[in-house]
């Protein structure tokens, strides 16, 4: 069943009486009866769509109950499907039978919102740790976020492996390097990994709930700290969602400046990852050289935009920094010099047998598995998935300045590194093109206040991959819910699958080649 338009397909398959169109705000949205929520998923799955995000909202402030939401993508089309849930026992049938990615989305919904996914194969809460009171549901309106949680006795039931010679390696939450915390539990025989199970949530600091106590303007600062390495992309996703909810477009020049910052963020992080990948295979020359290039970019950011990581430069309504003529000249000159140096390093990188020996074949994720899990971003593109929100959800100015499609199929650590290598080149090209064609005009305009019950959706391609943001205004137009789906929330699942049968000592390298965010996942 393939139709040119998944929205039309859904409406015709479910019947117009069962699929009410919500006002467009960033993506088309359909309201379906709760009994058909899973049917919609099934139809979309058979029409080759990907589940991007799934979340719940507490609508009691409007006198309603809870609602469940799912966002899907196919090609250039994103759609949102929602159902209102019964008041007495809020639950919905699980989507895990159709979509692997629903596995953690729904555990999170159950743990933090207390809305049950009936038939889910794993009822252990996610993000919510075992020492929380079982009835603490922080995303509910009735939950007071200011009150400290009491610690209770609890036990996390890990997946076990038995048999002769099988042993377990617990790692974390505090890891060996300068890195975020999380727990990995390996079941292994000798050096071979039988299974890896992740337990995350250690850096959960209540971000989604926090949004609800801030104004829409303050929220941009918080969005910029969802994952500090992705501050531009997260602030942008948030800003677009708020602007979509307000039915407002930021000034055109602001959109172009945002894209320039986004591409610079991509370059900085890819260079850092290439450095770290070299370090993990003890090729310290590459570690220092790529690190130096990154540092040069950060210093230029600091000079031109007043912050090395470009935090708090993107907000609903536009941006707070403009590109001056002098700044433009500086970026053009810097990009030229940087790329010359970069190509020299890539020649050396590509000619290094010890790098190849470690990277080729390590942590291979097949295109079939990547598709099954809905893997996004660099990891998806390294495993044959044509996923790039800049090309598929072409927010301004990516309709005019088009990113190259960089897709490899081997899905190993090498492919993930090589996608980055190509993307640094492409982001350098895009930066120059953005500067060349950048329209004149204002960089900020105050968006109108949000009306009660307004909703806004956005998808932005950060350097890791697609970020989904969805906002909902409560009574009085203040934030009622702000849902964030970092690419890592999907790609952590991919890491688990990619290391099966690999060697334990290759894990740090494979992990680095994904470089998933803990903070963006844990929120």
């Amino acid at each position, binding site marked *: 069943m393939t139709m040119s338009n998944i929205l039309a397909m859904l409406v015709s398959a479910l019947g117009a009486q069962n699929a009410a169109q919500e006002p467009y705000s960033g993506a088309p949205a359909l309201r379906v009866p709760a009994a058909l929520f899973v049917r919609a998923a099934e139809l979309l799955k058979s029409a080759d769509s990907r589940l991007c995000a799934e979340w719940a909202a507490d609508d009691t402030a409007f006198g309603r109950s809870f609602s469940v939401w799912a966002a899907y993508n196919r090609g250039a089309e994103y759609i949102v499907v929602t159902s209102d849930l019964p008041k007495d026992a809020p639950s919905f049938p699980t989507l895990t039978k159709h979509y692997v990615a629903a596995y953690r989305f729904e555990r999170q919904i159950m743990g933090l919102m207390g809305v049950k996914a009936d038939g889910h194969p794993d009822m252990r809460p996610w993000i919510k*740790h075992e020492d929380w009171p079982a009835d*603490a549901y*922080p995303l509910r309106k009735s*939950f*007071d*976020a*200011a*009150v*400290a*949680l009491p610690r209770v006795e609890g036990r996390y039931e890990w997946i076990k492996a038995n048999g002769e010679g099988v042993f377990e390696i617990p790692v974390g*939450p*505090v890891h*060996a*390097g*300068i*890195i*975020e*915390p999380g727990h990995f539990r390996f079941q292994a025989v000798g050096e071979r990994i039988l299974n890896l199970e992740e337990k995350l*949530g*250690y*850096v*959960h*600091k*209540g*971000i989604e*709930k*926090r949004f609800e106590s801030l104004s829409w303007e303050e929220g941009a*600062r*918080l969005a910029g*700290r*969802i*994952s*500090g*390495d992705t*501050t531009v992309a997260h602030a942008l996703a948030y800003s677009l969602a708020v602007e979509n909810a307000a039915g407002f477009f930021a000034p055109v020049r602001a959109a172009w400046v945002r894209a320039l910052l986004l591409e610079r963020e991509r370059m900085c992080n890819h260079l*850092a990852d290439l450095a770290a990948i070299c370090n993990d295979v003890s090729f310290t*020359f590459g570690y*220092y*050289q790529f*690190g*130096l290039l*990154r*540092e040069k970019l*950060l210093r230029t950011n*600091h000079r031109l935009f007043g912050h*090395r*990581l470009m*935090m708090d430069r993107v907000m609903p309504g536009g941006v707070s920094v403009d590109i001056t003529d002098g700044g433009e000249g500086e970026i053009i000159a810097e990009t030229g010099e940087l790329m010359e140096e970069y190509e*020299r*390093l890539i*020649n*050396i990188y590509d*000619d290094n047998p010890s790098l190849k020996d470690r990277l080729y074949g390590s942590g291979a994720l097949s295109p079939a598995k990547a598709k099954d899990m809905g893997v996004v971003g660099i990891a998806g593109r390294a495993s044959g998935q044509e996923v790039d929100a800049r090309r598929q959800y072409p927010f301004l100015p990516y309709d005019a300045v088009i990113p190259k499609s960089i897709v490899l199929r081997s899905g190993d650590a090498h492919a993930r590194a090589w996608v980055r290598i190509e993307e640094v080149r492409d982001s350098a090209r895009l930066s120059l093109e953005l500067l060349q064609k950048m329209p004149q005009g204002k960089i900020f305009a105050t968006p109108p206040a949000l009306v009660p019950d307004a909703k806004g959706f956005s998808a932005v391609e950060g350097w890791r991959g697609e970020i989904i943001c969805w906002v909902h205004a409560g009574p009085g137009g203040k934030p009622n819910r702000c849902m964030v789906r970092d690419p890592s929330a999907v790609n952590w699942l991919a890491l688990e699958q990619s290391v099966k049968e690999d060697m334990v000592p290759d894990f740090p390298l494979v992990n680095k080649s994904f470089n998933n*965010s*803990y*903070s963006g996942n*844990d929120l």
Partner: protein
Amino acid sequence: MLRILHQIFRTGIVTEPLAPEEEKSVELVGERLEEAVRKVFEGSLTIRMVDAGSCNACELEIHALNNPIYNCERFGITFTASPRFADMLLVTGPVAGNMEVALKRAYDAMPPPKLVVAVGGCAYDGGIFGKSYASKGGVASVLPVSAYIHGCPPTPAAILTGILAAIGSKR
């Protein structure tokens, strides 16, 4: 190999001295080290870094201490995987409720003098995450802090200056 050597010579030495104005980001609290201990640490300081709930921006800038420009090893500063070898605990982030136990365990595993340096605005007072059901706020709510390095995130130069100030280095 020749290309690698060529590139190394082209790059040269890029390490920069620390500017004195970086000290404005640093706030020392609590007791100072004894002179004898200070002298030992001045040429050799081992740090265990723990992210207690950070957004990862502070980690990026701490990472940068190892790049050739900031080159923390010139001061004898190295990062260790084990808290048992650590003279200093460098903590970032508000203390997430889910990290509180692990942070305390890392601290308990350290030998004296157990210096704690809190990096970034969140480690100072919880920053934008504040205090909530999931966040305990600043590091001082859980551990005794010797120095704060302010900034969101602080620059690598400020972090390096703060680490040296915390051990009373005369540099």
